[in-house]
């Protein structure tokens, strides 16, 4: 299951340093590689998957970086009463840094309050993964994704609340 899931996200396997992301720093002696945390998230993906979009407890954030052809979907399941995020999953098509960024975010948000996760900054993600400058936009994408997911959930909730409010009024009108 995990294998299949990882294949879904990751294609044929770790593209050993795709040319786009490889940067050989002349003079420093060492070629710039993916940080081991990025490799870890890539080889051992966690929280890959999908929730039902229509589920009222689920918020879905769908963002993309068109210049590199990346798409990121991040979903959260929120407990209505406590406002706590009980579960999170992601699906990202793009480079290893983008996948790792979204994976890290799903790990971080579990068990947190919705308002709390809004303060997750891309700089924290980038630092955690030691992202090189050229990949910083991947962490920004992940920040955008979690914000979009929260926003989506709140929009849904507001809609359903307004429907609930309208219904009793209607009943009263009918009566």
């Amino acid at each position, binding site marked *: 299951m995990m294998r299949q899931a990882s294949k879904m996200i990751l*294609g*044929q396997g770790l593209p050993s340093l795709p040319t786009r992301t490889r940067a050989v720093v002349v003079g420093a002696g060492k070629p710039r590689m993916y940080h081991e945390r990025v490799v870890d998230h890539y080889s051992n993906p966690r929280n890959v998957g999908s929730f039902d979009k229509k589920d009222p407890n689920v918020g879905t954030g769908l963002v993309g970086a*068109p210049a590199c052809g990346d798409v990121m979907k991040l979903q959260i399941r929120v407990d209505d009463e406590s406002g706590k995020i009980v579960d999170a999953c992601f699906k990202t098509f793009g480079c290893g840094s983008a996948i790792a960024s979204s994976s890290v975010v799903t790990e971080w948000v579990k068990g947190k309050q919705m308002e709390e996760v809004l303060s997750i900054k891309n700089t924290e993600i980038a630092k955690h993964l030691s992202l090189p400058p050229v990949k910083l936009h991947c962490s920004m994408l992940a920040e955008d994704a979690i914000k979009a997911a929260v926003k989506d959930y709140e929009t849904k909730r507001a809609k359903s609340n307004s429907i609930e409010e309208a219904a009793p009024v209607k009943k009263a009108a009918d009566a």
Partner: protein
Amino acid sequence: MWKKKLYASKPSSTILLRTTELAKIQSPNSVSHKNTPILNPLLQISASYSSSPPFVREIEGEFFATAGGLFFGGSRFHKKNVNLFVKKKNSFCSESQSAEKLQCWNCDATTDGTTPFLVCQACRSVQPVNHSIDYFQILGVERKFNIEVDELEGKYKDWQKKLHPDLVHSKSQREREYAAEQSARVIDAYRTLMDPLSRAIYILKLENVVVDEEERITDPELLAEILELREAVEDAEDTQALNQIKAQIQEKMQYWCNSFEDAFLNKKYDDALGSIQRITYYKSAKEELVKKL
């Protein structure tokens, strides 16, 4: 004796013809180095284009010729004044600023403007890279999106015959460096124009419309479509299914390429950028698909 020898070698013969005239006029310095009479007049030629008069007076330093070209020693020399100029410094020219007369660094011939000035027509020496010559000019095609890619290969190879570093062994160090740069630029030009996406991005860049590398979007329709497409590619079981999807992607890319062209011709650059976004997404989907095949 050495005069005869120099006459025999083609490139410098033109220089020699001009310099011998000047050598008669001017009295060479007392330096006994055999190349001096030639060097002095050459300096005069370049000095006449120099922007700083004091340079002319400082020609008393040592001269020595190296295998690569002319080098001038002497502590009074400022290196920047030593360059033999590619472009005429036109203080007297009545031509407009934009139409710069390009001049060969080697033989001072001016270009006739019909072919891109990568190699001098007269003395066949390689010129330094001039970034104002764009890729379309280098490969001799019209600046538009829908070019004939078949034409590109021939022109690319023609240039490489003249510019490729492997073919300029006999030339000076300086010229070999120029050749390496020019050759690399021609390769860039060819690669950029061959691929529709990079061609589209480049043609917009020439209009000063730059694709933002870090832009993020939230368009739900587009993203949902791409997500679905990527999932389909990942889920595809066999080659047949993959080829089907590939055909669909090709179709869509063609559609959006056409859409780009329309937008570009009508100067609707926002729409053009939108088309580029879609083409980029389809291209990356196709790359993943091809990996699976």
